[in-house]
């Protein structure tokens, strides 16, 4: 039997004005297990806590109930007080007689009755409480960043600057990501490469940062503070240590027909290649699908011309296994597939391009060396039409239901840049709404209209019809003038919706991080924990969490880094002891609990059990208490009642129910 102390707080007059506290104390004495009961003006005060400590020691209390304000307010206070006096903090229960009683009831008799019942429920629960010890788990002082775009680079630099080791895993041959493909950035119009390249160099030169390019995460196990990750380093066919990055191999490579990923397939590259001039590392890879040596066994030109002897056709994929304390996901985005949008003639005409393709066209290192020209015939366009919201804000399965957020701004940027460089080109933008929340954003858009004379028409385009003469007939509507518009254009640019990188699904599954219906990673709390995944130790950086522009991405990358640093700075993690536990004798090993666990905290082990003399090996659910967050989903899913939640056990809750219904 427990020895329980009951402490009833007046909270000044907040409780005492409506609840007869002395009556509550009197009733407390009649409850089983109660050996001490008293009331005081302010239990949370120094003096109040001293009373509690004295009672714990004098009466040798094994449990206590505080009848006071909400546990959300002072549960932690009273638990600490109990702990200081030598009582396990989890032997404390709170009866909320302020928010749930004195503040909402006016009649003293009624409120007092209810306060007594709430107290009884808390006493009934405490009778079944057991001392709990928070577990400890160690923290590996190393972070993994998945994705080497601006988000991943920024997060890595910030974590490394705090003194922790960081590994970046990037799927493509170079870090840099989408930002490296952009020409200029809004709203300041500075050159993307000029601001990104120094960051790339900083990351690669940082002594605490290790970059795995052309690599992918293969397997993740473990939990917060102690993840084990397998990284597949794909065979580059070039020795990273020997290569000097002279570029001769790329020049001499006879296979030059592979579509350039970096230029969005608008031109081609050699089979041995670095994606772009500023690539980091500046070491090429051999695209084995395109390489003549790999296809036919003959060629070997690159090997012959390489003075460093870096070419290695025999190289194999390599698996690196590494331990991490924190993982940051920064997998970024891609534009959606436009196959289902026949009406915009994207696949019919070379002169209908996406905005990301236009970035490449406008870029000096792009397929047209920065000259604005039609990709079909190389002629300079005179009429350009931009179409907004292509695939965004769609409720059908062709597009995405969300707003891609960045398109309004980059379209204004494109329009402005074109009008600036080619004043004789007419630019028309068909829009539904122009969305410019952001510092200096609306001013930017207004400049496009007022200063650069970009023609904005409110209304969506219905159809783009390629004409025999190579022109594009754009049929749109002008909702303000209420008329239908037919416009001949030389070029049409589609502000294509963005979607999370398709790989994120695989990665989220490995990390047991949840993703929403649009494949964006879910944050732990939409407002208050926007850079953490609900899975402990997993942080979110950049567009993998939701559409964002560059400044927002960088801000979030920094925030994710801070959260990761906060975790890495700890030597040990105290784990919440209110976790699920499975009763070895009751568990069926049926896997039902595993299916509802949002944290992947449940695994199964074959265990030797002694069930009242029957010795056998059984499949038993095992809860990793470092991963378990204590939601209790498994306890109800479990058909045999083997799974129970410490601190909120079946018997405790039933005792509360019984006390209330008594």
């Amino acid at each position: 039997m427990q020895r329980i102390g009951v402490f009833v707080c007046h909270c000044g007059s907040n409780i005492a004005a409506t609840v007869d506290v002395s009556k509550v104390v009197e009733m407390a004495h009649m409850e089983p297990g109660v050996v001490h009961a008293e009331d005081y003006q302010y239990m949370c005060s120094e003096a109040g806590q001293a009373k509690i400590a004295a009672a714990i020691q004098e009466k040798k209390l094994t449990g206590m109930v505080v009848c006071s304000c909400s546990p959300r307010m002072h549960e932690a206070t009273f638990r600490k007080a109990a702990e200081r006096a030598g009582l396990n903090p989890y032997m404390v229960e709170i009866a909320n007689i302020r928010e749930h009683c004195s503040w909402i009831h006016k009649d003293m008799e009624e409120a007092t009755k209810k306060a007594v019942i709430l107290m009884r429920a808390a006493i009934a629960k405490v009778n079944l409480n057991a001392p709990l010890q928070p577990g400890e788990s160690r923290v590996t002082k190393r972070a993994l960043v998945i994705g080497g775009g601006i988000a991943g680079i920024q997060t890595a630099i910030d974590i490394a600057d705090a003194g922790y080791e960081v590994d970046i895993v990037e799927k493509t041959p170079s870090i840099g990501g989408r930002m490296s493909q952009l020409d200029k950035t809004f709203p300041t119009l500075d050159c993307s490469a000029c601001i990104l390249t120094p960051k790339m160099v900083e990351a690669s030169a940082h002594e605490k940062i290790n970059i795995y390019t052309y690599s992918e995460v293969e397997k993740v196990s473990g939990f917060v503070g102690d993840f084990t990750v397998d990284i597949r380093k794909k065979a580059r066919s070039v020795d990273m240590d020997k290569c000097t990055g002279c570029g001769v191999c790329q020049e001499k490579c006879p296979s030059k027909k592979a579509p350039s990923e970096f230029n969005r397939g608008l031109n081609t590259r050699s089979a041995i290649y670095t994606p772009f001039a500023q690539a980091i590392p500046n070491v090429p890879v051999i695209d084995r699908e395109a390489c003549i040596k790999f296809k036919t066994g003959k060629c070997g030109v690159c090997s012959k011309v390489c003075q460093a002897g870096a070419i290695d056709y025999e190289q194999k994929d390599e698996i690196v296994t590494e331990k991490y304390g924190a993982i940051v996901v920064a997998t970024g985005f891609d534009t959606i597939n436009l196959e289902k949008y026949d009406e915009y003639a994207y696949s019919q005409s070379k002169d209908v391009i996406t905005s990301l393709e236009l970035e490449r066209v406008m870029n000096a290192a792009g397929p047209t060396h920065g000259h604005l020209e039609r990709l079909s015939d190389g002629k300079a366009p005179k009429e350009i039409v931009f179409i907004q919201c292509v695939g965004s804000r769609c409720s059908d399965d062709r597009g995405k239901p969300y707003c891609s957020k960045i398109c309004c701004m980059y379209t204004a940027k494109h329009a402005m840049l074109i009008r600036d460089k080619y004043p004789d080109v007419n630019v028309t933008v068909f829009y539904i709404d122009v969305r410019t929340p952001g510092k200096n954003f609306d001013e930017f858009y207004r400049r496009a209209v007022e200063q650069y004379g970009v023609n904005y028409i409110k209304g969506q385009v219905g159809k783009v019809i390629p004409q025999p003469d190579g022109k594009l007939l754009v049929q749109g509507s002008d909702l303000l003038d209420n008329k239908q518009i037919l416009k001949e254009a030389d070029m049409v640019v589609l502000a294509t919706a963005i979607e999370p990188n398709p790989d994120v699904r695989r990665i989220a599954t490995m990390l047991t991080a949840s993703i929403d219906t649009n494949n964006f990673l879910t944050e732990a709390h939409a407002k208050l924990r926007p850079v953490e995944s609900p899975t402990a130790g997993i942080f979110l950086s950049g567009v993998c969490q939701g559409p964002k522009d560059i400044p927002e991405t960088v801000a979030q990358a920094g925030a994710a880094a801070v959260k990761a640093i906060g975790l890495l700075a700890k030597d040990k993690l105290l784990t919440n002891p209110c976790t699920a536990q499975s009763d070895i004798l009751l568990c069926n090993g049926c896997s039902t609990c595993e299916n509802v666990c949002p944290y992947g905290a449940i695994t199964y082990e074959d265990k030797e059990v002694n069930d009242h003399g029957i010795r056998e090996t059984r499949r038993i659910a095992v809860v990793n208490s470092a991963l378990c967050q204590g939601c209790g989903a498994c306890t109800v899913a479990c058909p045999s009642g083997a799974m129970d939640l410490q601190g909120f056990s079946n018997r405790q809750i039933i005792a509360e129910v019984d006390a209330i219904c008594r």
Partner: protein
Amino acid sequence: MSSEKKQAELIKEISGVNPLKCMKCGKCSASCPSYNEMDIKPHQFVSYVINEDIESLVNSKSLWKCLSCFACVERCPRDVKPGKLIDAARQIVVRQKGQNYLLADEIPELLDPELPQQLLVSAFRRYRR
């Protein structure tokens, strides 16, 4: 329920369309081949239904200018399908005329040489149900 509201509800029921999903992008009007013939434009149809002004709809020229080509239905990004609303408004007119669906024999005398052929085809499609 007022009679306007009833009619608007009827249109929603027949068409199976929720006009509140419209985000006013105008892609329907941009797609419409009969746009210039219409007094009430396809995108306006949606707001007429929302505003429960069915009277104007059933008396509009547009009702009989729509070819039922369903380009707007195909392309609507929000699943609002103005073409279906127009269809439903026609249905209401037909029902008001005493549930008498068109008989095949009556068609020749009703034929207007101006009438686009596609409308006839779509009329058959609908009224033969």
